[in-house]
């Protein structure tokens, strides 16, 4: 997967720019809506706020990844606990999850400290969560959903992933989307009508720490996960 060069910045920028059309159109169209009902107006304002927040998070994360992938900045790795990162991610995405009809579950098992960059990992997983939340909350799905943020260790690595029961991403569809990244507007048509730029921005950020985003299965759910090397220094402590 290393040779799949989605970090070619202009390609990713185009994808992010295309993705940002949607929240801007959402804000523009909602501001046109005609109604005098106070509750509906308050609801619309909340949606406008979350559309703007999602757009800003995607943009800021793209810029963060760009700085490190360009070699303008060197990413600093330090021993961190993924449980703490995922607590933070869960806290950050909670509001968007609620608005998108989804409950968040946090599952942290037998984890060890890893070598990573707290801010980078947090941003990467916030983008993954946001993309899943927005993409899976469509007109077709009426029932409330749940999303699990899971951290577990396996052998010499920690795995961190975000899983849902309606995430239709397989290893082959993910790899095909990376291969077709430059040519395809809708990267994963079986999963989303959007282009899911948040996944690729996350992929780019994780690459700066030599971590790889992969489709994964966990407790019967599908998701996207990344592996991280354990911090031997902290294990000794």
């Amino acid at each position, binding site marked *: 997967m290393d040779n799949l060069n989605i970090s070619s910045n202009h390609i990713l920028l185009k994808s992010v720019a295309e993705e940002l*059309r*949607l929240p*801007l*159109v*959402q804000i*523009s*169209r*909602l501001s*046109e*809506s*005609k*109604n005098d009902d106070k509750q*509906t107006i308050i609801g*619309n304002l909340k*949606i406008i706020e979350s*559309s703007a927040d999602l757009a800003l998070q995607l943009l800021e994360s793209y810029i963060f990844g760009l700085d490190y992938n360009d070699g303008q900045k060197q990413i600093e790795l330090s021993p961190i606990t993924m449980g703490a990162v995922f607590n933070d991610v869960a806290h950050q995405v909670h509001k968007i999850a609620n608005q998108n009809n989804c409950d968040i579950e946090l599952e942290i098992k037998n984890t060890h400290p890893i070598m990573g960059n707290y801010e980078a990992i947090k941003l990467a997983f916030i983008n993954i969560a946001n993309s899943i939340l927005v993409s899976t*909350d*469509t*007109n*077709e799905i009426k029932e409330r959903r749940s999303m699990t943020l899971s951290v577990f260790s396996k052998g010499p690595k920690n795995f961190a992933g975000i899983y849902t029961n309606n995430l239709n991403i397989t290893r082959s569809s993910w790899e095909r989307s990376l291969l077709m990244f430059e040519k395809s*507007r*809708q990267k994963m*048509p*079986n*999963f*989303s*009508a959007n282009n899911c730029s948040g996944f690729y921005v996350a992929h780019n950020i994780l690459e700066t720490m030599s971590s790889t985003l992969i489709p994964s299965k966990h407790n019967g759910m599908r998701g996207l996960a990344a592996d991280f090397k354990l911090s031997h220094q902290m294990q000794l402590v």
Partner: protein
Amino acid sequence: MKKILFIEPDKVIARSIEQYFKQYFDLTITGSAKEAIFLADESTPDIVIMEIQLKNFNGIDFIHEFRSYTDWQNIPIIIYSIVPPSEFPQNKNFWKKMNIQHYLYKPNVKLKTLNVKIDELITANVS
């Protein structure tokens, strides 16, 4: 009230469409092209307005299927899409062949303008 079938996968845009148009038209909104076929079968719409970029079933496939039914060949279809029409340069003849009345690019076309286009189509069909 004229019946309009909207195919719109995005919940927020669907909400704004519903709030804007519900006072003028008998609206049905779905995010699924497959469901749209069933809905059209249950209650034949006067106009179909659709996004071309959909999950699972792409908009072009929907148009092919919709137009394959004899009764629906003259129902006006407006494409209201986040995808710029310039991405389909080879499809100009296709839109004509499939009897697509307008291709409107969402970022540039507000609901007010969409409403004008719908009114024009209704007036043209009545006369």
